[in-house]
């Protein structure tokens, strides 16, 4: 750890201080810990070019010796010394400031209060002209606590000591230090300890006097008064019940009086918290029959602003269940975003003139919306009766906020001259956000990212600040970056550290690899992929052995050779988790040099592969499975169509075609076996106009698919046999029967029977029996009812949860696409250790770590799916641009209280047909039906739908053409213009 020189240094008398503190261990035992601290004299001040300090690494000294002067008020050379509160509050401002001194003690405080912000700032230190000063280890700035001094007092004294040190140290450069703090109490304290004459600035004070170049920063200020009382005074338009004290909450949760859980919102004033308590646990044990009730019992409904009490989507909240007479039912409404719907008040000028402030307008609108919901709820309670009412509760405390940056648009306030404006998030689950800006015009028509800072008790909406402009709303570029932002997908270019891990070009396979690996170069291996695919990760071969058996091989790109565990590249890949495919671009998990070039299995060159080789009988029974790290040379990289053409052709004697034919024959048998076993044939959205699945290259598709599935299953079985504790598996939980309720309702309405509770085989067979015109759309609906497949670590999951329901496989994992999925990469590493070509690595063979990885890739995977779906939707809507209304066949997927959720197979698009407010209709919740006049709508009904693009709002409008219903089939106002 220490070099000899450092030892030598240490042997001279070094200043030692003793630091003592108490800690409590898990069992509650108080431990006294006393440490000797060796203070250093060689900690550098961080100024680039400071001769007074001993610096081990000059490249880390990034403070400029001649800092630019950007402020009119502070028109001298200065550095910035922020306190912890400032860093947390004004992170977005700090990001753009140079020459910041971050003290170790301050950063530790930031870490305690907000880990995300800590990480963000810590990353900033790597690139910006900031310095991270280890003040707790430096002899000049170390401050030991005096007896009878509070920790806060000591910390302030320490801070002042650092200020003194830097002021004196930098005096010879003519640089001063300014303490940045928004906390008036802290500023006072600093002045008291230092004895006056301190350079202090608040964010507002400093940023507002900055030169025009920094104009943008003004809007990024967090302007909530530091003092809570003042904050309450500043925003006063609503009164929320106060949150309880955290001790009281903890005691309540422990005693079972309150419940803790993540808040999931339908919209910003209605949502639910899924809880685990004795009642629901007891119910769950009493058998699957009662499962439906359990689910309802588990979820506690929260309705109304006061009951939701400032909770936002994803927050960890504490709730209290209300008395039974206040229980309610979910409204089942689909909210139409206020920015999209014509505001009743904007339309009605008379009312507007009477309204004083923008807040009032907003409040009025929201109240209308809320009233609508409650009216609907009251009506439902009447209709479905008291029995169906759900446990309802209210939020009494928030344990942890999940306030991530959100995308949306700012709507200019209707009130003249105000600096308060409203930010409308794209995500309908989030509330509107108050933004204070003096320059609202520049946000006109722009999509921006904003951050929620706080939700004062007296403010109807949370208060936040703007972070950055993404671009004009509606353009593909902006919408794509909004999608990436919204789903938290890391999409920055790969960092220098990551690039440093890439192999040097030109790169050739190391000669030693030829000796180590099994040679497949003479075997006829080929790959089949969609056209234009550059990251080919799988190739296949099949040959007849002398004894009449077949040898089949699946060769997967050996990415683990290029991505070694535990370096920057691996960390980045683990963070990204998966490659994200958007409609017009691809966000790589690993740099394209590896993904599209070195690892990708292009034909005609030697490639490193990880192979799975089976010996099979002609009836596709596996006799033997072997795994090798190998080297191969693909003879042909085909598209599905090319492969299909070869299969269809009559030529014989061509080795590639023969290999394909062999594979195809075996694949057909495997497929049949799989379906006989009860695998589900699911369909996402590939349905044509007639409601049928179309696939010209079915044979070549299923050829690849079958062997990939087989390889995954074989690998899963093998790795689990070797590593009981830390194998990475992919499981698909059996969906609870309650999930299938919409499907059951739809089936009932059409007089058909779907068996949902007897396993996948029965389900598949009952779907297969249905009439052709319904079959495909039924599959779409069934897919919707499914649960998500998940990655899991075998050591942290009970074995009976391993199976994959959809594939009817007892064990399954992902092995075949390491270029685009991190899971596969991990499986490759595990397998390499299992077949003893790699040495065991404690970082891989660790069930807790593996569990963490599985959780992360599950999240990344889901987010990637959402992002991809959103991106495709935008692109599809672009194809409608400038065209007249198009007529398409559509289906009703679900019947909602105030809308029909419809599906248009032609574009694989989903949308809502909203019912106008004044329309008379009858919603039958029990049967999932809506009757309008004489027309009845049920799930799975076939409709004719008109698709058009609403130009100003860039939104696809779904219009019901057939059956014709007045009010729904009228020409939209925009197109008649």
């Amino acid at each position, binding site marked *: 750890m220490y070099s000899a020189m450092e030892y030598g240094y240490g042997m001279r008398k070094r200043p030692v201080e003793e630091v003592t503190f108490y800690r409590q261990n898990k069992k509650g035992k108080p431990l006294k810990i*006393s440490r000797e601290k060796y203070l250093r004299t060689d900690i550098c001040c961080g100024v680039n070019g400071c001769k007074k300090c001993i610096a081990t690494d000059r490249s880390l000294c990034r403070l400029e010796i001649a800092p630019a002067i950007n402020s009119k008020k502070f028109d001298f050379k200065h550095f910035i010394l922020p306190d912890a509160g400032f860093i947390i509050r004004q992170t977005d401002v700090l990001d753009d400031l140079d020459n910041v001194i971050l003290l170790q003690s301050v950063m530790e405080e930031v870490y305690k209060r907000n880990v995300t912000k800590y990480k963000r700032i810590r990353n900033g230190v790597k690139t910006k002209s900031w310095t991270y000063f280890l003040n707790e280890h430096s002899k000049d700035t170390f401050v030991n606590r005096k007896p009878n001094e509070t*920790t806060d007092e000591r910390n302030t004294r320490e801070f002042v000591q650092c200020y003194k040190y830097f002021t004196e140290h930098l005096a010879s450069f003519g640089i001063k230090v300014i303490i940045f703090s928004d906390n008036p109490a802290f500023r006072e304290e600093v002045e008291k300890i230092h004895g006056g004459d301190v350079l202090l600035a608040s964010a507002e004070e400093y940023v507002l006097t900055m030169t025009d170049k920094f104009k943008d920063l003004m809007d990024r200020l967090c302007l909530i008064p530091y003092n809570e009382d003042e904050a309450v005074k500043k925003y006063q338009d609503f009164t929320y019940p106060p949150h309880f004290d955290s001790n009281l909450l903890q005691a309540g949760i*422990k005693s079972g009086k309150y419940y803790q859980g993540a808040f999931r919102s339908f919209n910003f004033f209605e949502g639910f918290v899924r809880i685990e308590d004795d009642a629901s646990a007891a119910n769950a044990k009493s058998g699957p029959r009662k499962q439906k009730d359990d689910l309802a019992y588990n979820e506690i409904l929260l309705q109304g602003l006061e009951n939701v009490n400032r909770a936002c989507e994803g927050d960890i909240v504490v709730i209290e269940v209300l008395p039974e007479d206040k229980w309610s039912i979910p409204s089942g409404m689909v909210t139409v975003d206020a920015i999209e719907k014509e505001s009743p008040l904007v339309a009605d000028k008379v009312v507007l003139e009477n309204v004083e402030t923008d807040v009032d307008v907003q409040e009025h609108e929201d109240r209308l919306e809320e009233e609508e919901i409650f009216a609907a709820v009251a009506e439902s309670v009447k209709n479905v009766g008291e029995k169906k009412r759900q446990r309802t509760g209210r939020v009494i405390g928030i344990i942890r906020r999940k306030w991530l940056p959100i995308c949306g648009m700012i709507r200019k306030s209707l009130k003249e001259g105000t600096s308060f404006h409203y930010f409308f998030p794209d995500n309908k689950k989030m509330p509107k956000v108050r933004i204070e800006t003096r320059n609202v015009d520049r946000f006109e028509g722009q999509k921006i990212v904003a951050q929620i800072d706080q939700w004062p008790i007296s403010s109807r909406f949370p208060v936040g600040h703007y972070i950055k402009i993404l671009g004009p709303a509606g353009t593909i570029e902006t919408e794509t970056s909004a999608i990436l932002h919204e789903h938290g997908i890391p999409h920055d270019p790969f960092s220098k550290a990551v690039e440093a891990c890439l192999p040097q070009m030109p790169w050739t396979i190391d000669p030693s690899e030829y000796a180590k690996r099994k040679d497949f170069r003479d075997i006829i291996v080929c790959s089949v992929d969609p056209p234009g695919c550059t990251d080919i990760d799988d190739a296949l071969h099949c040959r007849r052995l002398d004894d009449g058996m077949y040898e089949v091989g699946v060769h997967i790109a050996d990415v683990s050779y290029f991505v070694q565990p535990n370096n920057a590249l691996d960390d980045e890949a683990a963070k990204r988790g998966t490659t994200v495919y958007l409609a017009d671009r691809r966000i790589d998990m690993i740099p394209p040099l590896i993904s599209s070039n070195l690892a990708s299995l292009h034909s005609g060159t030697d490639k490193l592969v990880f192979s799975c080789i089976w010996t099979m009988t002609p009836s596709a029974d596996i006799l033997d499975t072997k795994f090798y790290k190998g080297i191969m040379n693909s003879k042909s990289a085909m598209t599905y169509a090319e492969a299909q053409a070869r299969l269809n052709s009559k030529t014989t004697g061509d080795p590639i075609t023969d290999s394909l034919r062999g594979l195809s024959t075996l694949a057909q048998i495997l497929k049949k076996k799989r379906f006989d076993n009860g695998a589900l044939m699911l369909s996402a959205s590939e349905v044509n106009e007639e409601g049928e699945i179309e696939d010209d290259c079915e044979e070549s598709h299923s050829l690849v698919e079958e062997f990939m599935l087989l390889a995954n299953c074989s690998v899963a079985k093998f790795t689990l046999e070797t590593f009981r504790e830390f194998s990475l598996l992919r499981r698909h939980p059996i969906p609870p029967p309650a999930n299938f309720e919409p499907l059951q309702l739809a089936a009932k309405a059409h007089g058909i029977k779907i068996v949902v509770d007897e396993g996948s085989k029965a389900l598949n067979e009952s779907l297969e029996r249905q009439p052709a015109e319904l079959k495909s759309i039924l599959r779409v609906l069934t897919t919707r009812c499914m649960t998500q497949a998940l990655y899991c670590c075998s050591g942290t999951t009970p074995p009976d949860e391993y199976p994959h329901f959809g594939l009817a496989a007892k064990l399954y994992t992902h092995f075949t696409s390491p270029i685009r999925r991190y899971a596969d990469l991990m499986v490759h590493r595990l397998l390499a250790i299992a077949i003893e070509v790699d040495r065991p690595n404690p970082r891989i063979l660790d069930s807790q770590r593996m569990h963490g990885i599985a959780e992360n890739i599950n999240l990344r995977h889901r987010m990637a799916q959402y992002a991809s779906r959103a991106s495709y939707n935008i692109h599809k809507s672009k194809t409608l641009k400038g065209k007249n209304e198009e007529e398409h066949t559509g289906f009703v997927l679900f019947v909602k209280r105030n809308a029909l959720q419809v599906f248009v197979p032609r574009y694989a698009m989903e949308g809502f047909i909203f019912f106008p407010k004044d329309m008379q209709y009858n919603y039958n919740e029990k049967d999932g039906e809506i009757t309008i006049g004489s027309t009845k709508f049920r799930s799975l009904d076939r409709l004719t739908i008109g698709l058009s693009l609403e130009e100003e709002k860039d939104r696809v409008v779904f219009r019901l053409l057939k059956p014709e219903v007045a009010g729904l089939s009228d020409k939209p106002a925009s197109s008649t213009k």
Partner: protein
Amino acid sequence: MAEILLSEVEKYYLVMGQDVRVDGRSRSDYRQGDIDLNAVTNSHGSIRARLGETDVIVATKVDLGTPDPDRPDRGTIKFLVDCSPTASPDFEGRGGDELAEKICRILSIAYDKSGTIDLKNLCITPKKYCYVIDVDILVLQCGGNLIDVISMAVKLCLGICELPRVTGLRYDLGQGVPVFSTDEFEFDYLDVKNSPVVVTLPRVGRYFVVDASLEEESCSKGKLAFGVTPDGCVTSIDKLGRGCYQVKSIQAATAMASTVGANVNNTINMRIDSLRELKLRADPKPLSMPMDI
């Protein structure tokens, strides 16, 4: 007990001495001693005490425990003595166990008497949580009068033992686990003013002597150990070793123990006060102080 071999002549000289002992002390004089502070840094209060050749380290550790079901509103103090083989060759292997057990018993009895330490102060939540103070005693050198030195060191140590203050109850681990302050200076001291020190009186020849050296001890058949509080009250009497005593001589010994013990105990109380004062001093602290009895 550690024994040394003495010749008959030496024994005779020791036994026949009047009010002047071999090393020049009178019968009720103690030897010189000193106290090292903070001998074990990670304990909640520790000292190393030397008196003559006898050398012990005592350290206290505060733990969280459950009260004795018989006494649900009290905490506990546990003693553990370790006689190191460095102290005497007799202690090698399990040799020191018997002595260690004996010392533990004497201390437990002395501290168990009501009025010495109020164990109710160690209770946090009745029936559930209390402080448990583990007093670990390590005998480094056995130079006579071991039990007295240990008892003094134990009293000193309990006097400076820092009980971290309870700041609240935490419910996430169980039913209201106490949360202790993590602040170095947020603690309470135990009130040990009235707790006893042990005065052991071996009879050498016709007289009882205090603070017997190893040589004197080997000339005596048995000894009486008294627990004495600062006001001279005798809380316990134990007979150690062989031999028998007449009632008269027991009375004489008790009277002697009472005066000497009160004196010693008051000195210890003074030392505790000055040690507590030192804790609050910011400037460089002295590493040791004289015992001065």
